[in-house]
């Protein structure tokens, strides 16, 4: 089966597809089981956010190289309502305590690099990268 590098998130099952894609790439790059689980959880979280709050969007996985290091980048994009107060959603304890999942701070912690861009009414784009140690 050929690995697709981009998954369209429309229903809940697409979250599984995005996870599978991420896990395959992580395995392929040689990430250990713990990091595989971390990357997959991050992808799951981002895909779930799209499914729950934006309705639809895409999650793409890219293999990346920098200074001789290999890694993988998650690109989650949607054209949903966007986030009004990014500082607030990046605050610790904003989501986890309510049982809403790891939230964006959780994703940030699971990955090595994290970048978010959001415009209310237009949508959100999140980039997150994990490097091989």
């Amino acid at each position, binding site marked *: 089966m050929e690995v697709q590098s981009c998954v369209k998130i429309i229903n809940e099952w697409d979250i599984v597809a995005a996870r599978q894609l991420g896990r395959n790439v992580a395995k392929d790059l040689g990430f250990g089981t*713990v990091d595989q689980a971390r990357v997959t*959880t991050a992808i799951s979280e981002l895909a779930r956010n799209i499914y729950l709050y934006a309705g639809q969007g895409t999650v793409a996985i890219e293999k990346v190289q920098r200074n001789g290091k290999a890694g993988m980048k998650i690109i989650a994009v949607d054209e949903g309502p966007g986030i009004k107060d990014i500082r607030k959603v990046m605050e*610790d304890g904003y989501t986890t305590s309510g049982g809403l999942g*790891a939230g964006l701070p*959780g994703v940030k912690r699971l990955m090595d690099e994290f970048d978010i861009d959001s415009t209310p009414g237009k949508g959100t784009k999140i980039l997150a990268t994990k490097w091989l140690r």
Partner: protein
Amino acid sequence: MEFKDNLEGKYREALSSFLKDQTEQALYQGQKISRKTMENRVSPEEIISMHKSILMEVCPGDPQKILDSFDFLMEVMMGYGIAYREHQSLRHQQQELKSEIELAANVQHTLLETKIPDVKVMDIGAISVPARQMSGDYYHFVQDENQNIGVAIADVIGKGIPAALCMSMIKYAMDSLPENRHAPSSVLESLNRVVEQNVDPSMFITMFYGLYNPDSHVFSYAAAGHEPGFYYEASTDTMSDLDAKGLLLGVEKKTRYRQYEKQVEPGDMIILLSDGVTECRTSEGFIERETLMQFIRNNLHLGAQEIVNNIFKQLEKMQHFELRDDFTLIILKRDV
């Protein structure tokens, strides 16, 4: 890295020993490992992964299904791992907040500092202890050009930082009162206007203001919803409430305050307090004002500062060293 290798070795040893004969000793090793891993901030998913790989080494014959189950367990524990890291970062933030508040408390302390006037005719003692780091109580002494001694005691309803912020305002309002307006009723009327204009409607301040004339020995005073103080009359050896009626500060713009007067004789004592003193809760409920009067009586022979210190110590002990509200107690004793 060194810690990780070391940890794996210890884990392997303890796990092998436990699998061999399930001793409490091996389990105790497990607890020790947990202490070490927490100290080094190892998250649960890493421990599960290590457990799996060590299990594969020490029990090569184990069914694959059992080994695979650890991957499932790891997935389930991911959320706990994230929560664990979040907890660490929140703890760090809490530490920062704590030191920030400590700093603020120092600033407040400097802001609200007041000197107990050194006068011949009176022995004055004062103590003020916040329940948390910042106080919502305030007391202040002023001495005007005629040597009159003004004493203010105020209490914001509520405690902690919001109350403390509010108090700083009272202090500045007091400082900017015109020199010739030190009559207690007019002091309260001015402050009432400031509070009414500047403070959130949900916040109230109670206050007592007194002015002692060292020549006539007349103590005039007025209060805005403040916990009544006590008056000790030496000639009859009796203690009574120092009652004064008046609306809280900040409720109604045009409140007028009634001024009361008392002729102070040698040995008489004026006792002022915040409700943190009477709302001292012991295992038998709030202390009674009578109990408090008795405490004061027991200390009558001492100097004013010693009396307030002793009473604070006694009440602190009765509450098992847990103050529920800011505590302020002032005693003015006319020398014999």
